[in-house]
């Protein structure tokens, strides 16, 4: 049995996951069950960071991956973000990098600049 703390939402449910059947106990919602299983099989994380933006009222634009990416690719995504320079205007939801690091997930802007 693996003891986990669910990170899907700030509630932080204390999960117990069966390592063979991946049955989850302690979750308050279905997303917790999915998280418990995924964390033991193929853990994923959302990456948030900033990228350079030119000609705007601020010099960094916050961004995030639109969904979770494989945990092992976190630093690859960071490297990819370092190469990006946006030019104002940027709108919330604008795709900054499509399919980042072949994860199938887009990186999007999270602030209007």
């Amino acid at each position, binding site marked *: 049995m693996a003891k986990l703390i669910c990170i899907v939402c700030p509630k932080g449910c204390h999960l117990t996951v069966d390592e063979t059947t991946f049955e989850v106990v302690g979750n308050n919602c279905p997303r917790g069950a999915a998280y418990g299983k995924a964390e033991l099989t193929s853990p994923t994380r959302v990456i948030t960071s900033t990228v*350079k933006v030119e000609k705007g009222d601020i*010099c*960094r634009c916050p961004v995030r991956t639109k969904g979770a990416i494989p945990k092992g690719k976190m630093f690859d995504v960071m490297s990819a973000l370092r190469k990006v320079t946006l030019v104002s205007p940027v709108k919330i939801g604008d795709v900054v990098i499509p399919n980042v690091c072949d994860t199938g997930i887009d990186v999007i802007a999270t602030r209007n600049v």
Partner: protein
Amino acid sequence: MFDVIIIGGGVIGSAAAYELTKYNLRVALFEKENDIATGTTKANSAIIHAGYDPVPGSLTARLNVRGNELAHEICKKLDVPFKETGSVVCAFGEEDDATVKKLYERGVQNGVPGLRILNKEELRALEPNISEDATSALYAPTAGVISPWEYALAFAETAVVNGLELHLCEKVTDIKENTVVTEKGEYGAKYIVAAAGVNCAEVEGYVKEPDFVLKANKGEYFLLDKSAFGIVNTVVFQCPNKNGKGVLISPTVHGNIIVGPNAEGVSDKTDISTTAQGLDFVRNAAYKSVPSLNLSANIRNFAGMRANTNEEDFIIRFVSPQFLSLAGIKSPGLASAPAIAEYVCELLKDAGLEMSKKETYTDSRSVIRFKELTAEEKNALIKKDPAYGRVVCRCEIITEGEINATFKTPIPPVSIDGVKRRCNAGMGRCQGGFCAPRVLDIIHKNTGIPKEKILKDKEGSYVLSGGAL
């Protein structure tokens, strides 16, 4: 060739520069750090002592009483925050009562005006929060609190306006008769005045083996938030006794409460770290005077180094025909500063330096303090310069205009703490947590220094670890 070179940009060196630049002299001042007032001057109790403490007849007694008198005038002229709060030395028991009487007599002999011994009731009327155990006190109405670094800056800035050649970041490494050797060059001078604070023995040693022993002594402090203001009204000392000199609790001129210091002899005179033991000592000692003191309102701890020596008196004398050493200037050095400066002029004159007063020199200075202005004045100022409409330091209500103004002074700041010493931005309860990034930006805009090169305080105190990402 300079007429006089001053070594050291603390309050003593700065005061000497202020006094000497009133004369037709070519004067230079060398300071090893990047600003005025970065040593003992910025880390002490900030008290202008009345002068009852020094032994009658001593140099210290005379200079302290005279220095107190001068501080009252100079702070008005040079716009330095100063408040004559008065001070009380509290007695706790019969033995202390006797000390209070002795201090009173000393003070009278020293010529301190207005001294009075307060009985228990009078003391409590003046200081309602004082401990029930206090039995009597010596009241000195002329004691006051000052902004020590602004005092030193006011002296140095006025001196620069009057022709002082100021060399910051230039450490003096040797003295050869009439030549001052620094890291950057050699400079000739008819006279050399050393005001090197805790480095007095080292600098004097360039000329001659000192005949005194430096006993560097560290003192640690608490600085309390403005919410604690009013817990005492005057500078509250404890009677010196066999257990030590006691600690003081005092309002500061900026509206905070200062508590300290302890006294610890140290071997490393550059070690101004605070310690758990030192702070505990101060904490416990302070409760003796004011049991209800709220030390959880602390916003900053700091420690300062005092240039104590084996002698009780200041050690001011020519060590060679050209070299005037101001050594062992510990408390009440701050209070004595302008009197020491006068004395330096006298000694140089007696030694043969030709001294004629300049026909015209500047003896005034003014600083805009936004929060002290009336509504009309605030509006007029913002109309003239909108930067005064933007509050950058929210704890102390310091505007962008006031910060910009520091860069137009005769000695512009080069660090975040340099800005703080000039206009109080970052001095408040959040200790720059909110405004430091903004002040850094304003320094960058005013000086063009890249952000990653901007310092918190001294050389090496970089704020950011590299350029923009």
